[in-house]
């Protein structure tokens, strides 16, 4: 049975067909599929079927395909790496269902266009990031505020070759949620520099990331 109903399929198809360049969804799963591995794989295949010229799927076994795991720096499953002409470090850990389906389609569009839609001021502030930085945005699938935070993190990943950004569905990775003390979403973990909660508007989000990294005012 299809995961996406007809109305959502139609919307998704319209959105995907507007994308300028094809993207590849690298699906990481394993022979004995994890919770929601099957659904994540199926979701990727359904999107590819809606727009075959815009979405390709490559499936990798998390256990045996060590080269791909290393190449895309995947450390847990289910995982989706969204890759276009370049790999900007846009990742989804856990099934991007619920409100996060919007994040997935937004992420695919972003990677397809290969250009972030953020202000010049934000781009300029990102110049303060001089070392590789990993952003992790914890979400729940019932949180309507979360896609905004995920999308902004992905925007920063596309804008800066030093930044990677991942959505992490908290209930599928409860150990990580406990480790990062996530009890409210969206919560963005900024490398080893700190964290903040809430779906902040773009200027505040960028300021928060940069100030945590640089340890000072922006």
């Amino acid at each position, binding site marked *: 049975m299809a995961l996406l109903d007809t109305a959502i399929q139609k919307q998704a198809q319209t959105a995907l067909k507007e994308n300028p360049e094809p993207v590849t969804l690298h699906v990481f799963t394993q022979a004995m599929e994890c919770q929601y591995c099957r*659904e994540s794989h199926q979701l990727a295949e359904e999107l590819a079927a809606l727009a075959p010229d815009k979405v390709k799927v490559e499936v990798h076994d998390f256990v045996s395909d060590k080269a791909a795991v290393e190449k895309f720096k995947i450390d847990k499953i289910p995982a989706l790496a969204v890759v276009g002409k370049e790999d900007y470090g846009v990742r989804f850990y856990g099934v991007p269902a619920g409100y996060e389906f919007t994040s997935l389609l937004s992420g695919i569009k972003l990677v397809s266009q290969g250009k972030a839609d953020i202000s010049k001021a934000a781009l300029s502030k990102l110049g303060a990031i001089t070392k590789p930085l990993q952003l992790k945005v914890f979400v729940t699938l019932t*949180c309507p505020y979360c896609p905004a935070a995920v999308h902004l993190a992905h925007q920063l990943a596309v804008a800066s070759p030093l930044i990677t950004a991942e959505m992490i569905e908290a209930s599928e990775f409860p150990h990580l949620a406990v480790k990062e003390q996530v009890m409210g979403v969206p919560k963005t973990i900024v490398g080893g520099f700190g964290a903040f909660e809430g779906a902040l508007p773009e200027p505040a989000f960028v300021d928060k990331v940069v100030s945590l990294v640089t340890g000072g005012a922006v």
Partner: protein
Amino acid sequence: MGLEFKLDLPSGTNLKAGEEKEQLFDLAIVGGGPAGLTAAMYALRKQLYVVLISPDLGGQVLLTRGVENYMGYQYITGPELARKFSAQVRQFTLKLAQGESVTRFSQDGKGLFQLVTSTDRFITARSVILATGKRSRPLNVPGEQEYLGRGVSLCAVCDGPFFKELPVVIVGGGNSAISAALDMLDLGSPVTVVNVADGWQADSVLMDQLRDRVTLLDAHKVTEIHGDKEKVSGVKITPRDGGAERTLDVRGVLIEIGLLPNTEALAGFVALNARQEVLTDCFSRTSRPGVFAAGDCTSVPEKQIIIAAGDGAKAALAAHRFLKHIPD
């Protein structure tokens, strides 16, 4: 868990970077909840050139578990109703600045309104409808800020899953609080509902679903939220009539005690009442000619989806009359 998929992408008519420059809109609608979306639909049917600026499409409806009092639907989930609103608007050519909010309002010497958005867009319009809605009101008690995101939540629907099977207290006595309690029961949590007002304000049909399944404490004050520095371990409550203080051992405190208007950026631009709501007259006019307001951010009583939607329609028609110089 059955998976649902929700898609709310900015449409093809979302403003591209810089597209707003050199454009003069007839009407800028600020806010994308029921009031803003209904205003957009009415204004577009009048063939006005409209831009809608909003962090999301749906507003507080997106956070609503179920809606049973919007005419035409005996039951519909909040997100589904929001999707229907947005789909109805998107059949028209509307310019959207989705994912943005307005941070500054001003009016130039020619009477045109200038709105600066959170991504530094500079939008110019001949009229404005304010439909910025409301957001959750905090309790303002010791421990609340300290434990926000560590057991205290102002968005039950977002954070409820973190308290699965753990004891929680829901603070509030209206429909949102009772809906949150029902959600937490579904997650297997022991639930106590503490109403900080005197008397339950929730609809009887919702209250009936709760009785005998949760502990209901009417007319209590929450005096403190405490924990072990890492997470919440309990709340202190006192009966409003002066009885003894007691402690509830809980891991989650979900606060649903009403709403605050999103009007900070409007101070000095239009008149606000003591509750910081935009003052409007029965024609949806604010204190500034050409600026109208609708929905939960206004002084209109009763914050309901159907009232906000009707208010949005009224504001759009009033804006149209203003633009076309039609007398009221």
